[in-house]
């Protein structure tokens, strides 16, 4: 029976990191990630972990040091948000290109400019092509669970790719919620030991990592990387199953709430799912067949699983907490739309960009969206396929 906490999301993540006890953590502070590293630094100072903590002088150096430590053969973790993630952008691609199983928590925060420190998903969406596995957390409990699973997923020999675990900035990171943690030795046993195929800390077998590829080999190395990401689909399912058995908490690719028989479905990443669930309850009581899908895995994007879950709906309303300017919709919408394209009979699918820069998403906003989706299902012809929810005109 695990210990229960009523604490912040950052505490949940810090506790997960403590139990994982990585060899090296290299991190730089940025709101709203700061408490994770502060908590962890105290664990280090009190000898509660064996981790060597490098308090680097920028996020670019944080990820660079993580690359160096991981290449050396160590188990490595870090955390960041927003512009911190943006600053380490080139190194993200290098980490995944060099096939280093680094685990990072990205506390979702809007990208500057203008500067905003509150929640939206623009930071991690900007990194969706970087070759990192991306897993979203709805709650602090999810964040704790996902971080532990991330270690196993990243280090799997058929994957060997870095993983970023997201949680909503301030809403989850700083909000107090209940969560339960596993026993220390349960985590230790679950993650096992990191056994890299190649490592720098082996002078008897000198390797060159990060060689210079000309046009004759780069493509092949990228193809291998794509294969790792493809293998991750099955690996994520397997690790999730093992963790579900261990924790008693079901780890799925997505959470469906009244989804199976719904005619109208809303799809949302992150904490907004909680708000929407209340509205679904309210509308179901009124007799409306509405439902919610909250995806957990974003990369590799489970196009088949997500499309199968949505294919029979009349209308799907996506909520994107980030925009892709000029992209004709936010990332979640465009990827779901593409996944559904294959089906002869497919739902109408629309997108609402919402919650940018921490703009509050209230139950009444969810209700107004669902009401509109119902009107569209009922035959309303005049509506925007893509527009903004919650912005003042």
């Amino acid at each position, binding site marked *: 029976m695990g210990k229960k906490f009523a604490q912040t999301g950052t505490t949940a993540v810090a506790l997960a990191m403590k139990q994982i006890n990585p*060899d*090296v953590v*290299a991190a730089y502070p940025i709101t709203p990630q700061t408490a994770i590293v502060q908590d962890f630094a105290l664990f280090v100072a009190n000898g509660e972990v*064996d*981790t*060597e903590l*490098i*308090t*680097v*002088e*920028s996020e*670019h*150096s944080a990820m*660079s*040091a*993580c*690359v*160096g*430590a*991981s*290449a*050396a*053969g*160590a188990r*490595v973790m870090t955390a960041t948000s927003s512009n911190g993630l943006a600053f380490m952008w*080139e*190194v993200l691609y*290098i980490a995944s290109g060099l096939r280093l199983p680094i685990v990072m928590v990205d506390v979702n925060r809007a990208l500057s400019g203008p500067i905003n420190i509150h929640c939206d998903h623009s930071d991690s969406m900007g990194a969706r092509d970087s070759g990192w596995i991306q897993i979203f957390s709805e709650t602090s409990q999810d964040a704790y669970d996902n971080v532990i699973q991330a270690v196993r997923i990243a280090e799997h020999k058929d994957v060997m790719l870095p993983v970023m675990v997201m949680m909503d900035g301030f809403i989850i990171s700083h909000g107090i919620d209940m969560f339960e943690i596993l026993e220390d030795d349960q985590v230790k046993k679950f993650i096992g030991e990191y056994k890299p195929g190649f490592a*720098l*800390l*082996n*002078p008897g077998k*000198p*390797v*060159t*990592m*990060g*060689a*210079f*590829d*000309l046009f004759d*080999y780069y493509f092949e190395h990228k193809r291998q990387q794509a294969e790792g990401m493809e293998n991750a689909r099955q690996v994520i399912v397997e690790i999730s199953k093992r963790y579900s058995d261990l924790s008693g908490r079901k780890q799925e690719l997505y959470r469906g709430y009244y989804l199976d028989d719904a005619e109208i479905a809303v799809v949302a990443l992150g904490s907004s799912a909680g708000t929407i669930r209340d509205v679904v309850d309210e509308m179901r009581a009124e007799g409306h067949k509405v439902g919610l899908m909250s995806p957990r895995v974003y990369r590799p994007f489970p196009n088949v699983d997500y499309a199968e879950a949505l294919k029979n709906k009349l209308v799907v309303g996506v909520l994107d907490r980030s925009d892709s300017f000029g992209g004709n919709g936010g990332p979640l919408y465009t990827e779901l739309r593409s996944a559904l394209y294959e089906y002869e009979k497919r739902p109408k699918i629309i997108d609402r960009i919402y919650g940018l820069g921490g703009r509050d998403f209230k139950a009444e906003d969810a209700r107004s969206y669902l009401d509109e989706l119902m009107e569209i299902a009922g035959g309303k012809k005049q509506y925007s396929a893509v527009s903004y929810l919650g912005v003042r005109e």
Partner: protein
Amino acid sequence: MATLKELTKKEARFTCGHRMCPGCGAPIIFRQVLLAIDEPVIVGVATGCLEVSTTIFPFTSWNIPYIHNAFENAASTISGAETAYRAFVKKGKIKDKIHFMAVGGDGASYDIGLQMISGAFERGHDMVYVCYDNGAYMNTGIQRSSATPYCANTTTSPVGTLVPGKLQKKKDLTKIFAAHNIPYVAQASPSHWKDLMDKVKKAFDAEGPAFLNVISPCPLGWRCDQSETIALAKEAVTSCFWPLYEVENGKYRITYKPREKTPVADWLKKQGRFAHLFKPGNEHLLEEIQAYVDAEWEQLQKLAEL
């Protein structure tokens, strides 16, 4: 310190078969560096001539563990590797002494990677950073860096009718890192191989960060013959343009005092990148350069007396 003959018996940890230009200073430097110590070394190299030419997949000249990350972050990358090593030693997973070396050209070290080296040094990692200073972004086509000497002709500080090449003086990176109060900082030259190798040994023996700044003539960028590399490095030293000194725990010491201080203009004349300085009307620039070198040399001698 081993004799040259003894050094010939060592295994080559930096091999032939790399694609650096004929006569390039950098491979000479790194052959000497890796011959100077015997313990295992793990190296991280910044993007640049050395990295690109020595690791074209699947050919590597490095017979030691090597990592390339990006352009500015060799120091951060090696910080991470060195920390992983300390973590493993603490856990009893590794017992042998392993050294850590980060390498960058002047572009990577004086400019884009300055912050990273400063951060790594401030944190006190036990590592050596070696800068091979050829005075420009040579790998991308001879563009100016803050290490480019005053009046040098580069593609982004070209000599034109209005401007005689680079207008700024060369940044003094060695003194910047001496000001970080790290255990060991030094300037060296491949022409004075024994001095260089002694410094390499001191740098690796130092407990904590060490910085070596090594002049690396580039026949293509300096516009000289490919056979002149060592001769030009030597004359950079004897003209006191590139004095050989060390700062050990804050104490300055000049490790080579030229018997005869040669005129800077003689050194400049041998390089095509300074050819414009010898046209009539530019005498004042030559005087300015000589005065500047003299003043710096005076100041260095005073620092050594402290």
